């Protein structure tokens, strides 16, 4: 009984330690790389580990594109679905949609990879007349499918939390359904929807297996920079592809750890951003 309090303190400090340990060891593991290559690799465009060239920019651009494509598709679709299911249709259809989204969210990422590889790529290959279908577009589409449930479910929750008194007040003012939606419901629900979007962004950033199977792993800048139909590389797919073959202790290994550190930092800053906005609101 006496042990309860110190035990709980111990566990809590253990977790606090863990939060510090992850960045600490990533910094330690990638230190040889930063020391030898310097911060300028962030804008380098050539990644040839055997020539000691470790330009990170192609993968950073690739990750950015993939996330943007995914958000561009998933945000309208997810929010629209939430509006339709909570405001327009019967509650049984709404709960069916919720169920469907929960199933979609439960499908493991490697299975999405399988779908991407054997369903999406041939489809893209034939419809855009591509060499193989491996492309940033494919990665973006698969990511969109993966984050759609997250955005939809969070938006549904957000819209349902808008109180009925506000709906009724809006209606008694004679607002049309559209005006009610755009002036009352969406502004009220927006902070929570934004939270869902940021969460989805983090998820898309860190997704590895599905992206790695469809993106093509070509470490080169897209040419032109808007070209999303070419094979490319993301930070996660580069780690997934190369970590198994980089010898522990080599600069290559530590360069991949640096990619991980970069991912962690971006993820953490997205989360911090979301957190501070929520706290302010």
């Amino acid at each position, binding site marked *: 009984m006496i042990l309860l309090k110190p035990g709980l303190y111990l566990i809590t400090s253990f977790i606090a330690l863990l939060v510090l340990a992850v960045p600490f060891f990533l910094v330690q593991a990638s230190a040889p790389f930063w020391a030898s290559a310097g911060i300028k690799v962030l804008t380098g465009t050539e990644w*040839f*580990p*055997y*020539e000691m060239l470790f330009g990170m920019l192609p993968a950073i651009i690739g990750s950015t594109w993939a996330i943007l494509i995914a958000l561009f598709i998933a945000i309208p679709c997810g929010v629209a679905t939430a509006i339709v299911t909570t405001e327009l249709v019967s509650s049984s259809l709404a709960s069916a949609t919720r169920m469907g989204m929960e199933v979609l969210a439960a499908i493991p990422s490697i299975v999405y990879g399988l779908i991407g590889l054997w369903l999406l*790529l*041939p489809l893209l*290959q034939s419809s855009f007349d591509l*060499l*193989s279908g*491996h492309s940033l577009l494919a990665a973006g589409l698969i990511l969109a499918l993966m984050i759609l449930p997250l955005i939809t479910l969070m938006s549904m929750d957000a819209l349902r939390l808008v109180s009925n008194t506000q709906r009724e007040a809006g209606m008694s003012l004679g607002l049309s359904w559209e005006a009610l939606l755009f002036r009352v419901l969406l502004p009220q629900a927006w902070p929570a929807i934004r939270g869902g979007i940021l969460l989805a962004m983090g998820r898309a950033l860190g997704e590895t297996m599905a992206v790695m199977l469809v993106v*093509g*792993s*070509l*470490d080169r800048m897209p040419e032109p920079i808007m070209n999303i139909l*070419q*094979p490319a590389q993301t930070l996660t797919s580069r780690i997934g*592809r*190369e970590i*198994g*073959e*980089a*010898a*522990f202790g080599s600069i290559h290994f530590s360069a991949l750890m640096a990619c991980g550190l970069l991912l962690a930092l971006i993820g953490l800053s997205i989360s911090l951003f979301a957190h501070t906005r929520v706290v302010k609101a």
Partner: protein
Amino acid sequence: MKHKNILSIIACAIAAVISITPIYAHETLHAMGSTTVMPVVSEAATAFYKAHPDISITVSGGGSGVGIAAMIQHTAQIGMASRNTSPEEQAKLNEWVDNIVIARDAVAVVVSKEVYLGGVTHLSLAQIARIYRGQITNWKQLGGPDAQILAIDKEASRGTRHVFAEAVLGNAHARAPGASLISGSNNEEQAIVARSHQAIGMLSNAWLNDRVRGIAIDMDGVAISPTLEQIRNGHYPISRGLHILIAKDASPAARAFVQFLLSEKGQGIVKKVGYLPIH
């Protein structure tokens, strides 16, 4: 006394995890490295396990570089490599590791079926080099169908890539600016070539099939196909030994496994997978 129940549940759970720890003597060997050697070792490991249930052998890929690195770092007992060790690697292995060739194999230059049937059945090394350098971009320039060339490169640490790039581009780590896709394992590359209509790639001889055709290499005006016959007599220019690395003081079990690979039965598996037995 509910908390006693909770405690006992936790205790049971911990006991369950610990109970996975072995009660009987059992040896596990780890084989790691080239995906080219992996099918042989994987299948041999299964056959070996049936004869020696007390020895299990785990097999994982990663590439020749990983296999050699794993030996240097003592994380695997059996290294698999589909290329010769580099001088730096050899310096670290010289004293204590045996390098045993268990099979021979050719790196075939493969093209999609449509390209092959379209007329590109043989190329010179110089032509292939120009494709990978980005100087030839359409199959029409080589007498084939009017289609853009999809040149597939492999990840830098792959043994197949070392052997191919050394023979074709002159340097194991030469860049290939003409490549527009990077693949990892042999499986993956085979899949991409099979699905495409305009691809060229590098694959071990054992992975050819109807959709993935190996083309002949022009050597002094003679076209030499990547057949077992041409590999055996040494005419085919891009060939290599498949290596097993094992410590000189390895356990009897590891030794027995290597002996098994070299035995008639083991070499039968080599042949079945599609490589050339050493005798």
